[in-house]
């Protein structure tokens, strides 16, 4: 697919594709349909994440990577899930 072709320059392209394929399948078939008790694609994620940590060259992206980790690991109050409100309008 084009996305892969375009990203050949990135050393993590294949690991990313493997992770995204796995994630998309898990999300469609399980998580979004109510089976959220088990995290999947963990191995794919760890390989991909390790590659990013090693190879991400762009300094802005590196900074974003560090911030992203910190952001998800702190207690998140910035996001609301007030779905009822949104759906009711």
């Amino acid at each position, binding site marked *: 697919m084009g*996305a892969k072709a375009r990203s050949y320059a990135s050393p993590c392209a294949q690991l990313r594709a493997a992770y995204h394929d796995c994630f998309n399948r898990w999300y469609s078939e399980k998580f979004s349909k109510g089976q*959220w008790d088990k995290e999947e694609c963990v191995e794919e994620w760890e390989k991909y994440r390790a590659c990013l940590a090693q190879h991400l060259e762009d300094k*802005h*992206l590196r900074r974003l*990577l560090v911030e*992203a980790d910190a952001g998800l690991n702190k207690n*998140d109050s910035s996001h609301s*899930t007030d*779905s009822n409100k949104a759906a009711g309008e």
Partner: protein
Amino acid sequence: MVRAYKQEHVYRHPWDRVTAASWRKFTDSPAVLSHVTDVHTLARRLDPGGGILRATRSITVRSPQLPFLLSRLIGQDSVLCHCVESTVVDAQARSMEIVIRNGSLRNLIEVEERSRYNPHPADPDRWTMFQQETSIRCRPLSALTAIAEKVEQRCAERFLQNSAKGREVIERICKYLEADSSSTSAAAGREKVPEPEGEDEIEAAHDQDKSPRCPLRRKKKNMASESVTTIVAGGVGGGEPH
């Protein structure tokens, strides 16, 4: 100095399919969203007890061609800008919220696009309501920062211009996800689909202030056949002089 834009769209697909398509939006259709040059998942976290999934991705966007003087100054025809996308999906409540912000030059301009996908109240099991708010906040400018700001403006413009395309992409991905699922399981009872009410409502955009240099002063209507985007810019006072 804030500009805000709102839009809504109704997908005639169930919530799980539309949100699955949303995850694939930037990675499955590179030809359509060609301004997106790279997408990486930077972090993810699942709360298995509550069914809440969080993820952070970087989206690298190529700006449209820069104005001549600017491209001479910078030495490039266009630039890459990084955006950060934070997503929270609550599978139990069937809500997905996506916030995209610019990741660079935030001291000059802040662009935030906040999107939600929820089951449509009229037919929660078959339709999905999409709501999106975009706000652009420009900082007061010095002569020096004006240049950097223009760069980021160009990226923001590109991003908004592709909003309508993004919806088309999601519609298309939904179709093939639907084809996939109906080939594996019998899709019964989908033939009769009533028309949704209150579709494509226009939400008046609000605008608290104006800056002469803020981007995107234009109105767009009927960008896609089923969607209406209203962009209202302008307003009075408070901004800096021309």
